[in-house]
């Protein structure tokens, strides 16, 4: 097995790296490029200066959009400063701040450092000294958050990207909260050496999470709807090239033919990729979904790695300089080469699936889970875990029932996790005010060998497999 024995990449940011910017608890994924303007939290800047610094370095935005590394500031020790004990004499007359909005704007326009603006605000607040120590603390924190633009450059990881997506683009990942994703990776026993089947419409985030946990060992077959797999989030991980050698993709629309044994490479498209699904669509619905997905793909790319547009335009301009006929000829050849490559990979993927010995199945999509499970579990070996995510509980209840009827699975569980975060400060510890209302539901289980009584007719088999489930139901009821 071609193991990624290479040492982890150097711990310094290089040109072209995929990185994540962090300001407080807000994240944004970008690719480092020289002279590329990045907009983050209402500020624009260039990333040129971050190159060569180690990951985790903190920067401050200065005028002209350059980032300057910020040394650790010793927290201005709140020595024996003046502070009130309660707020009985603090009156909200709206006049406690002596600086006007215009004054503050003037300070900002002068390019005065954020820290100094905060200091000025404190000095010009008539009530600051009367506030309790805790209230002063809170006031400073709030002002710092607003005026001190401190940005940390961190390495992408499932942790950071899944938190980022849940906060910024929950719709793109079907509201899969990061703790739910964490459960999926564990329940699915994702690890190096596995042969995994992944179905996701989560922008490639779930795929990336699985790839990270497998570290380039083993293989992954991604089953995609429409014209091709979406991997906008996968790109943000910045995986080495070697991780993609054993990443295969196979169209969901050909699963039935593969299971029926009628799949052949000849059914592959000879048309350009985009028109595949249109060609095969049964009606307007499919077309709509495809275009929806394409739109999704585009907007993700835009959100996550935005301001790439300038680059794209440049390359396009270069393209149009070429004589037109040559250009189109090259493109056709390129297209054919890509199609041939895609065809080859699809055949390889179909062979891997046909072995029916996958080590697990992970599903997290906007589709109804039941048909996916009933078909795709055929490709999974016995005694292997599977996990299905759904934003809603009801489809999983149906899926649970159908799987029980079909048999070949045990230890079925429907679950949900709740995540609560805490503020921990001296004498001020409590759960945070806001917690997430819903991060989706999971159905998990383990495959087992099915009774090989197919010759005896299906009725007998279904009776047999139903037997334990009815037994189980009785026992559960008596337990309660």
């Amino acid at each position, binding site marked *: 097995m071609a193991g990624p*024995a290479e040492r982890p990449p150097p*711990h310094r940011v290089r040109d072209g790296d995929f990185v994540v910017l962090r300001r407080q608890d807000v994240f944004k994924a970008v690719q480092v490029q020289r002279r590329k303007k990045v907009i983050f939290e209402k500020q624009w800047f260039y990333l040129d200066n971050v190159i060569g610094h180690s*990951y*985790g370095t903190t920067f401050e935005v200065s005028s002209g959009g350059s980032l300057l590394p910020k040394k*650790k500031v010793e927290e201005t020790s709140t020595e024996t400063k003046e502070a009130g004990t309660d707020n009985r004499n603090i009156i909200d007359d709206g006049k406690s701040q002596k600086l006007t909005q215009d004054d503050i704007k003037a300070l900002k326009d002068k390019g005065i450092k954020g820290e100094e603006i905060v200091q000025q605000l404190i000095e010009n607040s008539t009530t600051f000294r009367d506030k309790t120590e805790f209230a002063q603390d809170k006031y400073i924190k709030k002002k710092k958050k607003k005026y001190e633009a401190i940005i940390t450059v961190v390495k992408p990881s*499932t*942790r950071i990207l899944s938190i980022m997506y849940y906060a910024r683009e929950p719709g793109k990942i079907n509201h899969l909260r990061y*703790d739910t*994703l*964490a*459960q999926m*990776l*564990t*329940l699915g*026993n994702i*690890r190096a*050496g*596995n042969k995994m089947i992944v179905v996701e419409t989560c922008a490639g985030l779930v795929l990336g999470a699985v790839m*990270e*946990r*497998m*570290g*380039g060992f083993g293989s992954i077959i991604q089953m995609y709807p429409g014209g091709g797999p979406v991997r906008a989030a996968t790109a943000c991980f910045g995986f080495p090239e070697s991780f993609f050698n054993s990443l295969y993709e196979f169209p969901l629309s050909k699963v039935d033919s593969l299971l029926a044994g009628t799949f052949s490479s000849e059914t592959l498209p000879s048309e350009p990729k985009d028109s595949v699904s249109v060609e095969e669509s049964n009606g307007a619905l499919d077309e709509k979904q495809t275009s929806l997905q394409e739109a999704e793909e585009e907007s993700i790319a835009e959100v996550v790695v935005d301001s790439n547009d300038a680059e794209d335009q440049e390359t396009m301009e270069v393209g149009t300089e070429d004589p037109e006929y040559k250009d189109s000829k090259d493109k056709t050849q390129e297209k054919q080469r890509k199609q041939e490559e895609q065809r080859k990979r699809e055949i390889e993927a179909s062979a891997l699936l046909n072995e029916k010995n996958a*080590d697990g199945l992970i599903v997290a999509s906007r589709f109804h889970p039941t048909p996916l499970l009933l078909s795709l579990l055929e490709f999974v*070996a*016995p*005694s*292997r*875990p599977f996990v299905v995510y759904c934003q809603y*509980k009801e489809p999983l*209840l*149906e899926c649970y*029932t159908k799987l029980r009827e079909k048999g070949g699975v*045990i*230890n*079925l569980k*429907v*679950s*949900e*996790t*709740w*995540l*609560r*975060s*805490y503020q*921990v400060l*001296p004498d001020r*510890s409590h759960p945070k005010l806001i917690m997430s209302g819903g991060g989706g*539901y999971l159905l998990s289980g*383990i*495959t*087992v*060998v099915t*009774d090989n009584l197919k010759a005896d007719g299906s009725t007998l088999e279904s009776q047999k497999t139903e037997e*334990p489930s009815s*037994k*189980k139901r009785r*026992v*559960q009821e008596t337990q*309660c």
Partner: protein
Amino acid sequence: MSFVEYEDLIKDGDTAIVFLGHGSMFPVRVQAGGQTQTKYGVIRHSADLIGKRFGAKVTCSKGGWVYVLHPTPELWTVNLPHRTQILYSTDISLITMMLELKPGSVVCESGTGSGSLSHALLRTIAPTGHLYTVEFHQQRAEKAMEEFRAHKVDHLVTVRNQDVCKNGFGVTHAADAVFLDIPSPWEAVGHANAALRAEGGRLCSFSPCIEQVQRTCRALAEHGFTEVHTLEILLQAYNVRTVNLPVPDLGKGAAADAADAPSDAAADSGPPPPGVAQFKSGVPLREMVGHTGYLTFATKN
């Protein structure tokens, strides 16, 4: 079998999970000539297990049957012999992701306890990572090493029998991540800092009480850790049930009653008894785990 690699067939010396149904299961060490008693009768290892496929249905002497499963850290967690309180998979999942563990990661852990988390860590960091785990209780340390050997993961782990608060993890500037599950984690934060790579890493501390968390957070700040977050994760499990609710008799005629109420809800799930509305529900368990511990995460830069 191994805890870090799937194999198809059961062989002598393996640990296998015998699944009885209703979520009830137990582990067995497979031994030629060995026997295991279940409520469905005896399982003879040589005849019933060795050479069979993981996931196969095994018929026991009284005619009942069980499934035999390939071990995973998650199955081990619910079946292992307790020597201490253990961490369960819900917390383990979050710990693994938030510590950014993956193949090749070097992790320090203390205490080893019953090895529930250790097995999950080893699964994730194999085949190129390493786990340094510290347990001050000699018997527990030895027992853990024994299990790692039996589960064929001992090449990935070093167990040290020492006090982490006094003597640290036994490695310096080597770890990508540190996990603490000890009564006084704040006393080990300095050692954790030393164990983490110079270029940085992640830390997690598990504590049941908020006072422990407060002291730990203070120690983390003093040692220059950033991104300090305290989280709690709870698992809500659902029983899938078909529920029948009686339709009240409001004095309508019997014919109108049957036609009205239950029709749409029960359309596809068989005919419910008359006067009853039927639906599928995910019913929460009557009791759920309300608290295991607070998980405090931090970054060393």
